């Protein structure tokens, strides 16, 4: 008996161990626990010179603690994961010319990387190869045909342009209205030379971060225009971003030069316009990189509690018309530290197919990040959800649904005596008394009759 028991315990222990090991091995999500591990970055280039021409960009990343691993995009040893563990958290794809990625990499593998939570900063160019085009398609973005560039005859940069008007100076007003992505510091026009992006209108997650001005279009600058350009005016997207539903982030630019030292430091002057000593590129790229690698705009919701007013733990089920308190902590990642998030537009829904209650969460004074809502459960029973769907441009999606049951009154919870029913009570009791009296009288009289 006892040996049997022991053996089964040992077996149990072994199987536990095996399970843990398996779990460790096959964790398919990117490890986001420690901030250090978050910064393994693979940089794919199609030309090692990019390391030099874009040194400012890379240097800043390295200063911020990113471990950059430079590889040629057609390196046959390329791989994003080893033994089921992702090797990198971020991917920079500055290899527009690549037609086929090396090693295990493929657009599908990169899409899988994003589905597992990895972030991507990628750039195309007018000469973009198939690899980058296929990859863009995975994220709802399409690069314009080979050879075509964004051309703007009115807003080109007078100082750098060589007469084709393909180096354009984009007004910072054309940036998306989301300071968390683009920052607040961009004042000077942005220098851009490259192809335009077409955004899939069916894809609700793609953001147009930077669009060209209304006078621009996209075409091959060396050819006469014989067809209608693929993108015209503000439809010409220059930088697109996508935050996947798992909060992985992707930024796509049609111009590799946009990130170059040359453009960072160049002075900008529009044709007949004001002279800016330095383009806005560096400032924009700085916030954009911070955003795409999740230094900015990362929210989390934690410590969700709900209970009846005056109690501390949630009941097994709520009863209709009870007053309920819902509390949750909203935090934002700032400089690697979770700090309380301040906003007054967070809404809570209490829903059963349709929302029965929709209310704003209020900050609890004195407690950082703690929000609270108090409301009365509707007079409807069923299975409800406390639901928070907080979607703001640039911030990670915050979704939370907590399911609770709302039951009708128990048989002991109804009113015992209703004032409106007093006549009925009176009639019932008077009837009882009446029956008693009647039977007494009946018996009595009958006896009399008999005796007579």
């Amino acid at each position: 008996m006892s040996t049997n028991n022991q053996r089964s315990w040992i077996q149990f222990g072994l199987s536990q161990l095996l399970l843990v090991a398996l779990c460790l091995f096959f964790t398919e999500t990117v490890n986001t626990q420690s901030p250090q591990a978050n910064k393994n970055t693979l940089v794919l280039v199609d030309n090692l010179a990019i390391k030099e021409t874009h040194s400012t960009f890379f240097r800043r990343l390295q200063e911020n603690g990113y471990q950059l691993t430079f590889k040629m995009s057609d390196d046959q040893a390329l791989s994003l994961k080893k033994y089921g563990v992702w090797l990198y958290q971020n991917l920079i794809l500055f290899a527009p010319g690549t037609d086929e990625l090396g090693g295990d990499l493929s657009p599908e593998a990169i899409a899988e990387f994003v589905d597992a939570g990895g972030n991507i900063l990628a750039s195309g160019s007018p000469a973009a190869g198939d690899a980058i085009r296929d990859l863009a398609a995975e994220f709802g973005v399409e690069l314009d045909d080979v050879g075509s560039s964004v051309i703007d005859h009115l807003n080109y940069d007078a100082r750098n342009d060589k007469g084709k008007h393909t180096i354009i100076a984009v007004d910072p007003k054309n940036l998306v209205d989301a300071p968390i992505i683009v920052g607040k510091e961009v004042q000077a026009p942005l220098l851009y030379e490259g192809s335009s992006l077409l955004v899939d209108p069916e894809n609700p997650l793609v953001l147009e971060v930077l669009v060209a001005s209304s006078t621009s279009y996209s075409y091959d600058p060396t050819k006469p225009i014989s067809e209608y350009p693929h993108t015209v005016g503000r439809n010409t997207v220059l930088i697109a971003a996508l935050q996947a539903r798992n909060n992985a982030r992707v930024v796509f630019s049609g111009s590799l030069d946009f990130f170059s030292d040359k453009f960072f430091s160049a002075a900008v002057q529009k044709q007949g316009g004001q002279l800016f000593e330095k383009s806005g590129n560096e400032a924009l790229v700085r916030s954009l990189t911070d955003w795409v690698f999740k230094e900015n705009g990362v929210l989390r919701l934690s410590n969700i509690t709900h209970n009846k007013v005056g109690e501390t733990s949630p009941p097994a089920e709520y009863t209709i018309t009870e007053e309920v308190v819902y509390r949750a902590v909203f935090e934002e990642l700032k400089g690697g530290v979770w700090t309380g998030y301040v906003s007054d537009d967070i809404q809570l829904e209490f829903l059963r197919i349709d929302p029965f209650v929709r209310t704003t969460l209020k900050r609890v004074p004195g407690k950082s990040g703690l929000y609270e809502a108090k409301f009365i459960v509707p007079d409807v029973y069923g299975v409800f959800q406390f639901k928070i769907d907080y979607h703001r441009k640039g911030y990670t999606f915050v979704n939370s649904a907590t399911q609770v049951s709302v039951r009708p009154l128990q048989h002991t919870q109804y009113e015992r005596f209703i004032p409106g029913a007093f006549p009925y009570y009176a009639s019932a009791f008077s009837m009882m008394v009446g029956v008693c009296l009647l039977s007494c009288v009946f018996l009595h009289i009958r006896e009399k009759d008999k005796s007579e």
Partner: protein
Amino acid sequence: MAVKLLKSKSGDTTAQKYETLLKLSILSLGAILSFSTRLFSVLRYESVIHEFDPYFNYRTTKYLAEEGYYSFHNWFDDRAWYPLGRIIGGTIYPGLMITSAVLHNFLNFFNFAIDIRNVCVFLAPLFSSFTTIVTYLLTKELKDEGAGLTAAVMIAIVPGYISRSVAGSYDNEGIAIFCMLLTYYTWIKAVKSGSVAWAAACSLAYFYMVSSWGGYVFLINLIPLHVFTLMITGRFSHRIYVAYSTVYCIGTILSMQIPFVGFQPVQSSEHMLALGVFGLSQIISFIDYLKSKMSKENFDVLFQALFTLVAVTVVAVGSVLMITGKISPWTGRFYSLLDPSYAKNNIPIIASVSEHQPTAWSSFYFDLQLLVFLFPVGLYCCFSNLNDSNIFIILYGMTSIYFAGVMVRLMLVLAPVMCVLGGIAVSSLLGRFMKDIDQGGKGQDKRPVKPKEQAAQGRRNEISLAFVGMLTFFLVMYAFHCTWVTSEAYSSPSIVLSARSYDGSLIIFDDFREAYYWLRMNTPPDAKIMSWWDYGYQITAMANRTILVDNNTWNNTHISRVGQAMASPEDKAYEIMRELDVDYVLVIFGGLTGYSSDDINKFLWMVRIGGSTDRGNHIKEQDYYSPGGEFRIDREGSPTMLNCLMYKLCYYRFGSMYTEGGKPTGYDRVRNAEIGNKDFELDVLEEAYTTEHWLVRIYKVKDLPNRGAR
């Protein structure tokens, strides 16, 4: 036959003793027979709950046995009808559950450790034994003990009753028939004796009946109808006045204690006959009283005045209540009793249930056999000897035969009265002819017989012998038929299927339990499962998962929503499934095995029910028919049909399957056709599990695409 021997009544006490012993043994043998004949399914398969509704009853009984009555009474079930939930305590007839829980606790108190499941499985056979005894008592009251014994033995094996009371068929009807006959027995007793005690017993039996089955409405209309008929035929007396007034008052008050019944006995039209007859009997008694105290002229004047006054008030009050909605209009099921086509035209959800269909003529013979012919004979016997109680059984017979013709499942109500009347018929026929059979030495000696008379006696003897022999033969055939029907037709649990393979060996399809077990072990505990409502009870009971709709079809719009999802193309269905938080979809598919009651064959009902509400206006039954107006799934089928969710879920990957030799791939063995749309992929769902014989297929609903577009 027992009856033969019983007829030889002799005065001395030993004979009486023998008679009692014989009666007792026949009755107890009948009771044992009725129990054991219902055990086929347990012996063949295992001790398992059958079909659909019994699973719900089993689940609630288990809850009652574990949690106690008050938790049961207040039970709000959040596993069913997601996200609406269902108040179990207030929407069921608790009699069945309480009976088994009491039985379970009683046995366990005496340390008979019996599992609640086994109590549930064997409850219906147990109560049919009780029914046998009650039938004996009832028929004894109507005719005599011989008829009682015959009826008891007949009801023990009548297939019409067995169909709903085999072991494992744990449903309300299992005990309700016992309650019904008990109520009738006590009612006849009360009518005969005019005693308040019997009337009170009758109302208690009626209370038990109300607590166990919705069919009590039949009872509360039949008893007043009996009283009313007695009034018309001038048989109304003090006995009946006392009996009915007591039964109505106590019975109504008691029935209102069942939460599901509530105020219906005083509000709904179905109960108004009882109330009206109650009022009428008061008036008649009052008039009789006045008549006895007054002169005729004065009485006539008073009578006319009173009559007009009462008639006017009743009409006025009735119409006011009807307009204000206090008297609820008759419910759909009641209408469909009176007019069989009502449901079909108006309420698809009622018409979709197979047991609500009108009865086929053949099933009368199948379920009742000999009794079909004995029924009129029994009626004749009752008519020829008309009294208060016989009028009752005549009324019961006539009404129930009508209702059984309207709805298949009411065959159950007809079966007992068939047996009672059959018993009366057999007993009186045998009683007439047995007298003439040559008794051997005993009878001959009593008086000298003339030769001419002797010849007549001899012929009479032969005829009688022939008749008795014939009847015995019929009765034996009846016994054989009943056993055969029970064994072949009514003893399959329908949760486990079986079939014969080509070489004659038995194949067991245990796919349902396989699938439910898979759900139980492999899905998150709060997963929501969408299936057609037939499988709702089974999923909650066996897989313990949340379901959207179940066999308690109380919310038409919710079922309609599920029907719309099943009938829509994938993208539309996905919106509905997202709205209802569906995690898994379960379909039943018989195309591989040839199991004909699968979801594709039920699909037209989903279309009809789906299209019957406002939100499903775009779903039109016509779109699912081929241009030739047929429901087909082959190449001729309509494109709407070939691309709807139900089609895709059933036939996913089926296009590459070989099912029968000599037939192309994707050959559906139920519809006998090669499917029309073979090569397709699913966008919004992925196959999660398919059982061994493809009977049950489970799909997981995919999340929204991570990167925005598919």
